[in-house]
């Protein structure tokens, strides 16, 4: 949460000569971050981001207090005035206007203070008040309402002013709202409440305040108001937060109540407000000060072992300096023993300084993190996880083969699941999605990559894309889904070219026993005939196939594309960097080309396997040419210990011809 703080206002409480730039720097480095400094006439306005744990800084005085602590430790002269000038006199009025207050449950409102002021003259606020409110972007309305806003900015304490005469029967009942009760707030909006919001109703049962958030229109101060009820309180932060969430409605006041108000600071704020009303609005006190505070905030003490300073901060800070820093922050200290301090936490830090580590933070930040040395970590031995190394290797290989890596969102819309005839109810669904295209956690990367191809084909005729990302497979209501990393790609090249790319990838990864087999149980996005299952050591690791017409149409892809989909972990487990050496042959090989006529629908791999198995002297069988029903093989015959004779080769050749004929797979074509 950000607040605006004018430099001139800080200087009302803090006497020091530092420049605005120094102020911004010191605060940012040791306390709260000054995101921007703007100049307005002679003044500088700081736009400060206040962390959620420091509601005590949500005010001009809070910032002045912080700055004072920082400057004190830098030995820069600065003096912080106490918030209230004890010389202020309060005029007592003769009348004693009544107010009956009933609080149904003190946990709703731990401290309730109020006072009535009479003889109010509503008019514009004095110039300085108007100017200051303007500098912090708050509209000046009239002298009474302005005081409540002024106080909120100055002390962080929101307060409200009621028109006393609109509190019917001079009675206030503070209670929880019931389901469906309504109130029209000051901004004219009707709010329909849920059960449990904090509200005040008057003697006639009208809701006159949506506590901690905004007052009601029916009790508002207007130009005719003569008597004002000044109202300063603190509420249960959780209830305020819940109500704001339910109503989707937040105010400057509610933001402060949500973060927690220091109940001990209320009396000073009330006193100052009263004196301002008297001074600026002509008012006179017309009642006793009502203060319902049954469970005053207890002070807390922390036993702080000063050895923690060097343990956590990493340097030695003299005990005297540690004590000075803590004292300058309002933390009273006394020695319990040589190395332990008894720290009494000030009322405005009770909820945030709870542990000795919190005290260390106070010391470290005021000392200045920028003043600490930088040290390197001690050396350490460790083993490296191969999975990331191999994954990076795979990506690099694919890049140099010609692929572009894409990154799609992990979530897809219902439509993409349906295009693949997958049932949305089978997959993980986000219950509060941001948009309808990012709802289901992907059980496959394929629809996303098809969508990308469809989108990009207008820019590129040729494309080779891949993505490596998790898919999410539900495992049941009380088990986290299985997250499996997949490598999925799409290409406008032909099947055999992509098959070649995959083979190259497998070769480069040192994967040896791979084969491409006719797939039996594959997704129906593929053209069954031009699809293969990829196996490594007989284990299926993925699929590669040409997309069929139906899928092409449903994704509006113009040209034929090939998709591959592999399980990354399988690639990683089977990869190796082991290189083996095969001794170079000492004797020349015998190489010849043999052509065969084959039966239609014969797989070349079967022929090659048959030929290979015929004789150990057959070192290599490569497909040289493939044309209609003819396949030409280049056969390499090799012996490690002699040059093969024509006779020896002839014997093997004849065997090849006979066996292929016997198996009715291929007939030798004589030249």
């Amino acid at each position: 949460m950000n607040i605006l703080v004018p430099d001139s206002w800080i200087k009302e409480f803090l006497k020091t000569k530092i420049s605005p730039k120094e102020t911004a720097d010191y605060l940012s480095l040791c306390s709260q971050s000054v995101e921007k400094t703007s100049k307005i006439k002679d003044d500088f306005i700081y736009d400060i981001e206040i962390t959620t744990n420091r509601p005590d800084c949500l005010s001009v005085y809070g910032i002045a207090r912080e700055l004072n602590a920082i400057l004190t430790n830098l030995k820069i002269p600065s003096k912080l005035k106490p918030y209230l000038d004890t010389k202020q006199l309060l005029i007592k009025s003769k009348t004693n206007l009544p107010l009956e207050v009933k609080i149904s449950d003190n946990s709703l409102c731990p401290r309730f203070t109020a006072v009535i002021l009479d003889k109010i003259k509503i008019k514009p606020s004095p110039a300085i008040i108007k100017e200051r409110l303007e500098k912090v972007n708050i509209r000046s309305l009239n002298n009474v309402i302005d005081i409540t806003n002024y106080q909120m900015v100055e002390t962080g304490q929101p307060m409200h002013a009621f028109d006393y005469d609109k509190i019917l029967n001079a009675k206030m009942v503070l209670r929880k709202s019931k389901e469906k009760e309504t109130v029209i707030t000051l901004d004219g909006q009707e709010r329909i409440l849920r059960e449990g919001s904090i509200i005040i109703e008057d003697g006639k049962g009208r809701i006159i305040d949506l506590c901690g958030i905004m007052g009601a229109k029916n009790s508002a101060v207007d130009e005719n108001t003569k008597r004002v009820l000044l109202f300063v309180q603190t509420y249960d932060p959780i209830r305020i937060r819940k109500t704001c969430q339910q109503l989707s409605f937040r105010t400057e006041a509610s933001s402060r109540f949500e973060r927690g108000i220091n109940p001990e600071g209320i009396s000073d704020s009330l006193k100052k407000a009263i004196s301002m009303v008297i001074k600026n609005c002509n008012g006179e006190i017309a009642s006793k000060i009502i203060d319902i505070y049954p469970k005053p905030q207890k002070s807390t003490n922390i036993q702080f072992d000063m050895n923690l300073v060097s343990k956590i901060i990493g340097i030695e800070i003299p005990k005297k300096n540690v004590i000075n820093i803590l004292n300058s922050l309002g933390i009273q200290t006394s020695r319990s023993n040589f190395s332990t301090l008894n720290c009494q936490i000030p009322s405005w830090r009770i909820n945030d300084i709870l542990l000795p580590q919190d005290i260390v933070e106070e010391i470290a930040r005021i000392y200045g993190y920028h003043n600490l040395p930088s040290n390197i970590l001690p050396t350490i031995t460790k083993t490296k996880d191969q999975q990331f190394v191999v994954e990076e290797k795979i990506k690099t290989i694919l890049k140099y083969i010609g692929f572009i890596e894409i990154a799609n969102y992990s979530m897809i819309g219902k439509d993409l699941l349906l295009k693949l005839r997958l049932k949305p109810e089978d997959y993980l669904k986000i219950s509060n999605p941001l948009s309808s295209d990012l709802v289901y956690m992907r059980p496959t990367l394929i629809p996303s990559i098809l969508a990308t191809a469809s989108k990009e084909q207008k820019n590129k005729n040729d494309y080779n894309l891949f993505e490596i990302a998790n898919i999410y497979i539900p495992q049941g209501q009380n088990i986290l889904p299985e997250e499996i990393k997949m490598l999925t790609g799409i290409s406008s090249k032909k099947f055999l070219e992509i098959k070649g790319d995959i083979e190259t990838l497998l070769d480069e990864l040192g994967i040896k026993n791979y084969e491409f087999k006719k797939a039996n149980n594959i997704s129906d996005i593929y053209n069954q005939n031009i699809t293969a299952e990829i196996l490594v050591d007989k284990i299926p690791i993925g699929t590669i196939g040409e997309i069929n017409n139906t899928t092409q149409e449903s994704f509006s892809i113009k040209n034929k594309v090939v998709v591959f989909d592999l399980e990354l972990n399988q690639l990683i487990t089977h990869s190796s960097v082991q290189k083996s050496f095969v001794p170079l042959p000492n004797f020349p090989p015998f190489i010849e080309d043999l052509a065969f006529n084959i039966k239609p629908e014969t797989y070349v791999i079967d022929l090659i396997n048959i030929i290979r198995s015929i004789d150990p002297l057959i070192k290599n069988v490569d497909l040289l040419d493939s044309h209609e029903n003819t396949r030409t093989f280049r056969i390499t015959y090799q012996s490690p210990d002699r040059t093969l004779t024509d006779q020896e080769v002839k014997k093997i050749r004849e065997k090849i011809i006979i066996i292929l004929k016997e198996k009715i797979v291929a007939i030798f074509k004589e030249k």
Partner: protein
Amino acid sequence: MQEQFISIKNEVLAQIFSAQSIDELENIKTIYFGKNGNLTKLLKEIPKLPKESKPLVGKIANDVICAINNAFEEKKLLLSKSVNTKSEWFDITLPGIKPKIGHLHLITQAISEITKIFESIGFNRVSYPEVEWDWYAFESLNMPKNHPARDEWETFFIENLKNTKYGIGVLTPHTSSGQVREMERVKTPPIRMLNIAKCYRRQSDISHAPMFYQFEGLVIERGINITHLKGTLDYFAREYFGPKRKTRIRPFHFQFTEPSFEIDITCDNCSGKGCRLCKEGWLELGGAGMVHPSVLKNGKIDPEIYTGFAFGWGVERVLMMKSGLKLPDLRMLYTNDLRFLEQF
């Protein structure tokens, strides 16, 4: 006979001198040294000379042959030099025929660089679930249910995913969910984790994508203190952004660290002077802090013996801040326009 040799020599030398090509030279050689060449014929006469003249003529013949051979070699060299410079014209400015290589995604490139920087100081890369339990994402990090701190992370919730012990299932909004997981995995420090993973938050605008990457460091050992955190972050900033950029560390608040910090880096657009793209010359890099004792306890590590620090930063963020890569909309990283991806 002496004069004959000298005169042939001059003849041959003159021809060699005026030769225009190597072929011509070969021709000259053949004419004079060939079977019926004049020089050959002359040499054949030497044995017919009287005994006293032989030595002298022989020497002259030798000198002549030497001189001619030298002249041949020199001319050959000269001619081949000019051949090399005087061949057919070729347009070398024609575009080269490039092999078609692809591109890795910017995020992959950034992750690779970040990993290398931390691995060299002993960090171990891991990855933890993206779909995570509330316990790991929030509760174990000192953020009880309904704590306002949870609002900072606009969380995506998963339908029908709930565990009695670990709470409801969410898409993790930060890599800090890996902290207690790592403590459970390693059990006894030292821990030096680098968790780089996808995170999800319910926001989408020019500087936020609903899915993004973070990298999280966690160091837990005996004797770790703030100076080590400072040292590690200074090292990373120097290595990744270069020595010209300055960093600063200032107080902040996270529920799971105490003390907590935010780290800023000087804006590269204005070199730290202040401009509309930065905050008074500084850009926020990310948060860090000393691991909160409650978090250590939740990871079953004794805070009396061990201390640690953690930091969690956005990969896209540091990427944008490094190269002054001025992407008008961060979500471009996930729309996969190939004309964009091909630039990197």
